[in-house]
């Protein structure tokens, strides 16, 4: 939105960073790297990139700034990056949104017009309910849905969260209404006041309520238990074969020079090991999940194929 002001802020942040550039970083071909996100300032995707940018700058040897480009459910931001020169100066912060928007809305530039460069985190999704409510476990919620009718909430109409609930509904064969909202906050209200049996969200956005003891976690939608929440069973352990991976990574315009790819592939694992960065992302339960250029491209293709077949099965797209 405001490139110039963000550059200023980025420079100040880089100057405040307490540690010094590492060797090899001087080779990076451009001075300023812009990370583009479709998230609005302060939203999950935006905070992820801003935190990352503080540590990436020294690791890559360039100034890293974040630019928010809203609009078009993310399509505008993708188009902007896809049309940029592939010289290592402009990147896109990926989340499942860019795949959903591409499949649902078929904009001119979709996820396939970018090169998925590296993955950084998986952001675990969890099922939760109101602490004052009648449900103690996922099985309680499922029993209600099996015997009568369940009411489950997802933050957005066509999203990974919605898909995970629809999958849970279809593998268990229960009768549940999946209600979509205008974002996580809107849904949280309906969980807290008991309108919904349970909702699905990321730990980071639930933290406030979780610490205050207002909500109870029911199960994790990850393949393995979440570190730091070792008592929380996964949905798979409860007997329902559903697990999703919300990814947060970086994509680039196609045709990036190999040395830029190499610089990123070297920088991300190093940044993830940085104890100061760990101190920021570990409390949010973000799971470091570095994937290099080749692995990430395969991962995104696989993710898109799964999403496409889900959307076709449910008749959302043809």
């Amino acid at each position, binding site marked *: 939105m*405001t490139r110039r*002001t963000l550059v200023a802020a980025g420079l100040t942040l880089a100057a405040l960073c307490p540690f010094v550039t590492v060797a090899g970083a001087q080779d990076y071909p451009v001075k300023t790297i812009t990370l583009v996100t479709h998230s609005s300032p302060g939203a999950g995707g935006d905070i992820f990139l801003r935190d990352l940018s503080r540590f990436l700058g020294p690791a890559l040897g360039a100034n890293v700034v974040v630019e928010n480009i809203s609009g078009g459910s993310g399509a505008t931001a993708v188009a902007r990056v896809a049309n940029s020169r592939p010289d290592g100066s402009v990147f896109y912060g990926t989340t499942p949104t860019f795949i959903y928007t591409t499949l649902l809305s078929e904009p001119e530039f979709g996820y396939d017009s970018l090169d998925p460069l590296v993955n950084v985190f998986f952001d675990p999704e969890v099922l939760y309910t109101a602490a004052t409510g009648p449900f103690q476990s996922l099985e309680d919620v499922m029993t209600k849905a099996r015997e009568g009718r369940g009411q489950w909430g997802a933050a957005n*109409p*066509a999203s990974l969260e919605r898909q995970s609930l*629809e999958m849970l509904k279809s593998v268990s064969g229960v009768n549940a209404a999946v209600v979509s909202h205008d974002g996580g906050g809107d849904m949280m209200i309906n969980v807290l006041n008991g309108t919904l049996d349970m909702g699905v969200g990321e730990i980071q956005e639930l933290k406030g309520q979780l610490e205050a003891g207002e909500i109870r976690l029911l199960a994790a939608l990850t393949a393995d238990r979440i570190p730091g929440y070792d008592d929380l069973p996964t949905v798979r352990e409860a007997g329902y074969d559903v697990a999703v991976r919300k990814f947060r990574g970086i994509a680039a315009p196609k045709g990036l020079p190999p040395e830029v790819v190499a610089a990123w592939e070297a920088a991300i694992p190093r940044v993830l090991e940085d104890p100061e960065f760990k101190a920021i992302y570990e409390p949010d339960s973000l799971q470091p999940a570095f994937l290099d250029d080749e692995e990430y491209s395969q991962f995104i293709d696989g993710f898109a194929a799964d999403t496409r077949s889900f959307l076709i099965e449910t*008749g*959302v797209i043809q």
Partner: protein
Amino acid sequence: MITRNMVGGAVTIVIGAVYLYYAHQIRVSSLADSFGPRGLPLVYGWLTIFLGALVLGKSTVAVWRLDGEARATLAQEEWAGEGRSILRAAGLLLIATLYLLLLPHLGYPLSLVLLIGGVILYMGAARTWRVPVIALLGATMLWLIFVKLLGVDMPEGFLSTLLS
């Protein structure tokens, strides 16, 4: 004779019909509820057509009921002076549209000077030295507010490619 309400009713019916046509093309998937993404648009579309027909019909009946003399006065007064005002408005809209088309090529500051200067002249100000000066000052002020202060990425146009 044709009244404002007849035109208004007719335009409303057309808008409702076009809207309905596109409402029928919305995809309904199994993620949708029973009311569906088409539900309310269909209600809106039909209501619009109904109300448009009502306005059109009421006006037609009212005119038909008038005696000859009253109808003649109405025919004279209903649209008096509107032709000119519609033409003038269309002219201003054309200037604004030209600005929009030129903006990506000429860049923000230059297009602004042309827009402000053009509108001042179109609105009938005397052609004095003041017009270009105010156009320049106004454009500079807006450029300072939007580009420098707010940091908005306005189109830069050919000037930036020449300079860089």
